[in-house]
């Protein structure tokens, strides 16, 4: 994806260029994925416009009404409009995915670059740390850290950042090991460029593509983890709507009012679907460009 670009342009320019090429490539999977994600993001941002209801407004008289024209997804046990809550919940869950990927990605890429580029004892040390963190099941370690730090979104982000970076570091380290033997790196070194410059201006753009691919599925996994935590009461405090929390709250009424549980779940599945499609099309492109 990034290999054909001229060496001189800056990193942000290259990333933007790559993103543009990516977004406009002809591929149905990609189009559907992108359109879906953009649509959901817009709905989330424009939630106040999309739904006239206040997601936290109690209206116990209207509790547990089935889906209707007035309430497309019905109402929950406290009379809140489920559609509005799903939309506002999207804000939280999309944020969970985005931050849950962004921070570990940055950390992991930096660590991976350093480990791959310098090699030696530093690489061995980082490799060991990665091996150790990877031995823990992701969700178990995240929930253990959140248990210690206390519930809440910020602590969730801290936990995810502490655990997720290893996957990205591994990817980037492997790619860096290969990249540092390539001609463009040898050229840069012979020209006397500083290490940091070589790593970040030259190697980085060429190794970062697989991390974006992984980031797509990581996005989905983070939402699932976040929703699971919300389900167990370790996420955002009520009455803030979050899909996992909504499912937990609606659990008791599932027999009489299944819509309270079904729609938030469907929302998670739909977001997961679009991101997976996008990830797949990105993976195809990365694979096609990669001469290996």
């Amino acid at each position: 994806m990034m290999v054909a670009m001229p060496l001189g342009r800056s990193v942000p320019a290259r990333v933007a260029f790559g993103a543009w090429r990516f977004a406009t490539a002809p591929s149905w999977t990609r189009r559907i994925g992108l359109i879906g994600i953009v649509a959901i993001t817009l709905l989330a941002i424009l939630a106040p416009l999309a739904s006239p209801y206040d997601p936290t407004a109690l209206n116990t008289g209207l509790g547990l009404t089935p889906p209707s024209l007035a309430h497309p997804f019905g109402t929950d046990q406290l009379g809140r409009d489920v559609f509005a809550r799903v939309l506002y919940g999207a804000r939280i869950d999309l944020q969970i995915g985005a931050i849950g990927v962004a921070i570990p990605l940055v950390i992991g890429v930096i660590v991976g670059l350093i480990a791959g580029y310098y090699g030696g004892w530093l690489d061995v040390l980082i490799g060991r740390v990665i091996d150790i963190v990877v031995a823990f099941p992701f969700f178990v370690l995240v929930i253990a850290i959140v248990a210690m730090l206390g519930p809440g979104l910020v602590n969730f982000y801290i936990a995810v950042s502490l655990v997720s970076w290893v996957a990205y570091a591994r990817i980037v380290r492997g790619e860096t090991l290969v990249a540092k033997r390539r001609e463009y790196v040898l050229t840069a070194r012979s020209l006397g460029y500083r290490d940091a410059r070589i790593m970040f201006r030259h190697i980085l753009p060429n190794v970062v593509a697989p991390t974006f691919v992984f980031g797509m599925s990581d996005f989905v996994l983070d939402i699932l983890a976040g929703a699971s935590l919300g389900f167990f009461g370790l996420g955002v405090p009520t009455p803030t709507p979050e899909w996992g929390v909504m499912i937990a709250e609606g659990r008791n009424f599932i027999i009489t009012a299944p819509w309270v549980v079904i729609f938030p779940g469907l929302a998670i599945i739909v977001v997961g679907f679009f991101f997976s499609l996008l990830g797949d099309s990105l993976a195809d492109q990365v694979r096609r460009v990669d001469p290996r």
Partner: protein
Amino acid sequence: MIRYLAGRLVQIVPVLFGVSVIVFLLVRLIPGDPAISILGSRATPELVARVRDQLDLDLPLWQQYLNYLGNALRGDFGVSFFYQTDVSSLAAARIPLTLLLIGYSSLLALVFAVPFATLAAIRRGGVVDQAIRLVFTMSLGLPSFWLAIILSLVLGVRLRVFPISGAGTGGLDTIWHLTLPAVAIALSISPILVRSLRSSLIEVLGSDYVITGQAAGLRRSTLLWSYLLRNSLLPLVTILSINVGWLIGGTVIVEQIFGLPGLGSLLITSITTRDYAIIQIVTLILAVLVIAVNLLTDLSYAALDPRVSLQR
């Protein structure tokens, strides 16, 4: 084989140490005074002092770790404040059920995923393949807790086919009780299994030796078994091994929902009671489980692939 096993065990030791360090450090993440946090509303100055003494909180960090390690190697992982017994016996009692559930879910996941993946790979590019890929891409985002709830509603409550809580009375009854949870876990992990397995199978199908076999006019059954399946076992084992972490994560969630007395539900209930000793030991056990699965996988490579020499 023994030499190889010994070699791998030696390699594992540093990882085990590292895991114990992380588990040890977990409690030190607690903001403020861990003792106060543990005691919660029961905190009195004497109790706080006693807890601080028990946890060696006034000692330097490395000494705390050495004490922790020393105790751990003797099987003493601390006492649960909630249950008032030592956590190692608490946790040990729950291991069998969790292992059973993990094994059961893996089996169901395989039974479900392998046929679909094989079908998709053999009919690559066709309608069947596209449909399978679509369905399993859609279900990548399927939350296991949501699926568990819906399954227990439909199959447990509405249709009354399966029980929805508890572990039953042992033997077949336990298996019966574990079926719905295992199905929930298996279904939530099968999308990733089907997708990975399909890729591996396509790779095997495109191998040169498969074409040699076809060119020699081998019977379909021979090609399927000796060429396709036998060469897919290795990738299958690898895929399972990579995803064991997710399997365990799903198990933890599902145990809680179905009220199964396993390690997972112990972990989750201990969060609300702030029973940190339990959280530590369960995390440790599950990490060791992952390491053990990886080791078993490595050993199985030797059995599955004649090119893998154990003399390394």
